[in-house]
């Protein structure tokens, strides 16, 4: 078996993400939109905003991953592409991982890149920490996308599966959200939290593809 089918699945998912409507603009708009709604709800006190900003961004990142993942596998089951991918001889887990990674790249990573700007709007002080946070959002986003991908694959055949994905995936987002928030806080564990965050992401990368693969085989059944 060669890696050609996996690479092709990755390439198709990239093309699909860019071609589907506005590409990365859609999740970016959602991310920015949900984020800027918060100061309107909780008030504009600079100290408050500075304290909650990083956490709000984690929540927005989680939500926008759910919104973008809803269609990933659903479209594949509807147009028959999933049947073709599952017959390439490549492991279903690898196909699923390639597609999910492509979606993180087109939707998750841009959100991380946008984060310094949003944090500045939340009264964060301009410093190198903003770039560190950008890295943390990028790493944590991978875990969000992979666990969210499990929810998306499991509900690929369910009509209006978006709510189901959220219910399934949100408990799995907890460790990432917690370590992410701790890493950006100034508590005693803010030094070790980034390592835990990275470990959580590695765990997601190792475990989630198998669940996604099994779920995709089920979706095609």
């Amino acid at each position, binding site marked *: 078996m060669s890696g050609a089918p996996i690479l092709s699945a990755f390439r198709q998912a990239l093309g699909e993400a860019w071609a589907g409507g506005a590409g990365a603009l859609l999740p970016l708009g959602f991310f920015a939109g949900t984020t800027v709604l918060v100061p309107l709800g909780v008030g504009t006190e600079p100290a408050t905003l500075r304290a909650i900003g990083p956490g709000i961004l984690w929540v927005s990142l989680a939500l926008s991953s759910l919104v973008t993942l809803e269609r990933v596998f659903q479209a594949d089951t509807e147009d028959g592409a999933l049947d073709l991918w599952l017959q390439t001889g490549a492991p279903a887990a690898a196909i699923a991982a390639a597609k999910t990674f492509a979606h993180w790249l087109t939707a998750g990573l841009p959100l991380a890149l946008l984060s310094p700007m949003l944090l500045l709007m939340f009264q964060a002080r301009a410093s190198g920490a903003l770039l560190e946070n950008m890295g943390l959002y990028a790493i944590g986003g991978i875990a969000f996308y992979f666990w969210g991908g499990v929810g998306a694959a499991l509900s690929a055949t369910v009509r209006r599966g978006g709510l*189901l994905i959220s219910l*399934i995936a949100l*408990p799995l987002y907890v460790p990432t959200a917690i370590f992410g928030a701790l890493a950006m806080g100034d508590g005693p564990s803010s030094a070790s939290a980034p390592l835990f965050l990275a470990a959580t992401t590695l765990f997601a990368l190792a*475990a989630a593809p198998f669940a996604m693969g099994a779920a995709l085989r089920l979706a095609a*059944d």
Partner: protein
Amino acid sequence: MFSWFANPHRFVKLSDWLVPACYVLAAVGILWGLWQGLWIVPKDDYQGGDIMRVMFIHVPAAWLAMASYLGMAVMSFVWFIWRHEVADIAAKAIAPLGATWTALCLATGAIWGKPTWGTWWQWDDARMMSVLFMFFLFLGYMALRAAMDTRQKAARAGAILAMVGALNVPLIKFSVDLFTSLHQDASVITAEGPKMAAVYLWPLLISSFGHTLLFAALVMTFMRAEIWTRRAAQLRARLMTGD
């Protein structure tokens, strides 16, 4: 050919006497624990006085919240590997009951928390938070099964999700622990532990045992109902095709 029914049949036979026995023993255990907990044992002033009597329902519920999720995950695993029909029926039966005891654990925890910490919901308590996320896992499991159009698909999807959840529970627990260790100012009670006086330990153990037996009896009752429902659906399908 399609001989999966052989095993459920054996289960129904076994549970014919096991279920009533469990109900009776469970009633004895729970009632004795209640009587001891509410009437007999003295209040513990180190634990905030009389309020510690909530323990005799809260601790069994907490134990069952954990044990039922583990049980569901094990059953899912057994089904996934060996495709043993009864294992799937068991996993399906555990989910709503596990959610019930998990909700009981959360509710009694909140009621215990109010007079003790002065708040219904203690965000800094790792155990409460972990149990809450487990409750969500149960809900997701049930919603996913309900969304699938055949029982075979529900079994496969449910098994995958239960196993994914089981993999994540330790991680969730660990992250919540780390999160809450930052906020030590809240005085979390440490009621559990072997150092507890025997007057409390025995009623606690007996009532936990009673709750466990009641849980088992209810799971088996749900399983019997599910087996009969599936059997009826099978016969109905046969009636329609005229076999």
